């Protein structure tokens, strides 16, 4: 008999979401590669999405899931613009890190 697998509760999802968000935030703060930075931002967005879905399930409200669709669409648009900028920068300066991109400093 296989030991009873505990049923995941909403708390589990929230903890996972918090961990993912923290990972993304730390990544944004410590990494210098623009592409990695980008992935970290995506991670944070999806952590938030997970929270939305978890609460939607728990509260039986479809509004949270709808919001997730909005976030995905906006994230897709953001990726298009952001990756475009990143590719343009890397094409010009292949080894550029975000620390090198400080031309607009005051």
């Amino acid at each position, binding site marked *: 008999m296989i030991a009873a697998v505990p049923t995941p509760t909403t708390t589990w999802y929230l903890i996972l979401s918090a961990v993912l968000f923290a990972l993304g*935030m730390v990544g*944004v*703060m*410590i990494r*210098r590669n623009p592409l990695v*930075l980008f992935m970290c931002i995506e991670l944070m967005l999806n952590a938030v999405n997970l929270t939305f879905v978890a609460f939607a399930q728990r509260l039986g409200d479809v509004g949270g899931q709808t919001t997730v669709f909005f976030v995905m669409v906006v994230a897709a648009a953001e990726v298009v613009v952001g990756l475009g900028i990143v590719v343009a920068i890397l094409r010009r300066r292949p080894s550029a890190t*975000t*620390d090198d*991109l*400080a*031309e*607009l*400093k*005051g």
Partner: protein
Amino acid sequence: MLDLVWLIPALPLTGFVLILLFGRRLGDPKAGYLATTMVAASFLVTVGVFLELVGLSTEERRHVVTAFSWVPVSSLHVDLAFLADPLSITMCLFVTGIGSLIHLYATGYMHGDPRFSKFFLYLNLFAFSMLMLVLGENLLVTFLGWEGVGACSYFLISFWHERESAATAGKKAFVTNRVGDWGLMMAMFFAFWATNPHTLSYIGINEAAAEGHFSTTTATAIALFAFVGACGKSAQLPLYIWLPDAMEGPTPVSALIHAATMVTAGVFLMVRLNPVLHVSAEYASTIIAVVGAATALFAATVAVAQNDIKKVLAYSTVSQLGYMFLAVGSGAYVAAIFHMVTHAFFKALLFLGSGSVIHGMHHEQDMRRMGALRKVMPVTAITFIIGWLAIAGVPPFAGFWSKDEILLFAYDKSPVLYAVGLVTALLTAYYMTRQVIMVFYGKARWNDAHAEHGAHGDVVEADEHAADGHAADDHAAAHTDDHGHGAHTPHESPWPMLLPLVVLAGLSIVGGFIQLPFATSLHRLEHWLEPVVEEGEHHLSVAADDLKYVLMGIAVAIGLAGISAAVLVYAKHKAKPIEPQILADGWKYDAAISAFMGGPGRAAFDGVAWTDAHVVDGAVNGAGALVKGAASGARKVQSGNVRTYAAGVAVGVVLLLVWFVLLRGVL
């Protein structure tokens, strides 16, 4: 035709634009002919408008043509509009009429000048501005013209700006006029503030005055501030100082701007606002009359001792303008306009005559080196003599009638003012006779004067002559005249210069007939101007009216006395000339102003400049430096490092969470 009144200023403006674009290509003399044609066309339009206005009844003689809405600001609504009424059309008639004659004259006078087309450029711009001034339906359009003529006056006085004295004279005229412009602006502000709804239109202001919407104090303020403006533009005490110096400009300019048209703008303004003056305090018109009379006498005394042919005429102009203000102050608006018109005729004639003399004498202006010119310049001499008779007050020439009317009203106002006017008339006859004798009669001095100056002129005088000679050389070098600078035989001027002289001489003879005192039906100018002046015009007392022929007789006697005195002194040499140095120096008024402004005035201005540079600018620069310093500190925050920004956002989020969750207890 009345709706075409906008054409009157538009034609000279077109001339200005055409000369601006093609002036150099047209050159000498075509640019001059173009300018003359434009002003002459404007004259024809004016005549058309005039003929139509004459046909209308008294109440209908006022027509407003709006070109466009100029300043529509909530309750203030100013149109660029023209007001065609007897006053503005009278002004337009002689501005464009005499203006086109002087333009024609200038094509001869300025022939050979290196900046020939530029001269006509300014002259057309002047005609445009002057017509805007007189045709303006509101104070703002008049102000536009007022400043325009001021600027053109500056350009034209310093037209030969290579000459230090001409450049300085231009600046002096401009700066002195600014003082007067301040007065006009104050009058505008007061009128705007006092009318309800706010308006700057003459019709609105004058109706408000006539209907008693102005308090006496307000009306007095408007009238007196307008008079300050008039004092500047029309060269009255204490602001007259620029006009004698303005003679540095070419003579057609002196004739057009500084005798016939621009300097009468002040008189025009006062007549235009006569309903306001009518409801202002009694002392306002007394001040105007006293200033006018004082200026008339003062300038006449100075004119007696001048040796420069144009300076005499300049002081004479100041004096005659004083007469006009004496008339305005006495409530004799018709007489003021009458004298303005006749003065425009004979003073333009005298100036153009003097220009012809100067031209014929190769830019010699000192009357001590003239004499007997009537033999070599017969046309100039005869026309100048007609002008002399007109200004000296010999009937039936134009000046007699207008001066007599002013004196009649002055007598009604106060016998003292009348006496001052009479003394001025005596001096006028004296100094003009002196001028005619020195220039056209007696011994020819143009040759020996030069020999003398070459051999034993004293140092100061020689220097002065050297400076004059230099300026004349500059001009004569460009002059494509057959006579060299060495040959000093005066010659008669070419026909474009003589034709205006002849026309103006004719007008100086018959000009007075527009207003004769003998019968009411002969008061033609008065009937014509009635819609404009009916509010303010003073009506002669019966006592003065009864005395009118006696006063006329006295005026004739005084004029003849002045003439005979001058003949005795200068032609018959029965008495030595009395020309005190203090009169030649203009009562040292100019020198006193220079000394005051150069000494304590200079120090005060230096103090103001220091305060401005250190206190005012210090405060402003300090505020600037403060902002700059703070900003250069603050911009360090923008490091350009993405990770720092991300950390900032993270810290912000944490702080917000702490605020909401722990402190506000949201959860």
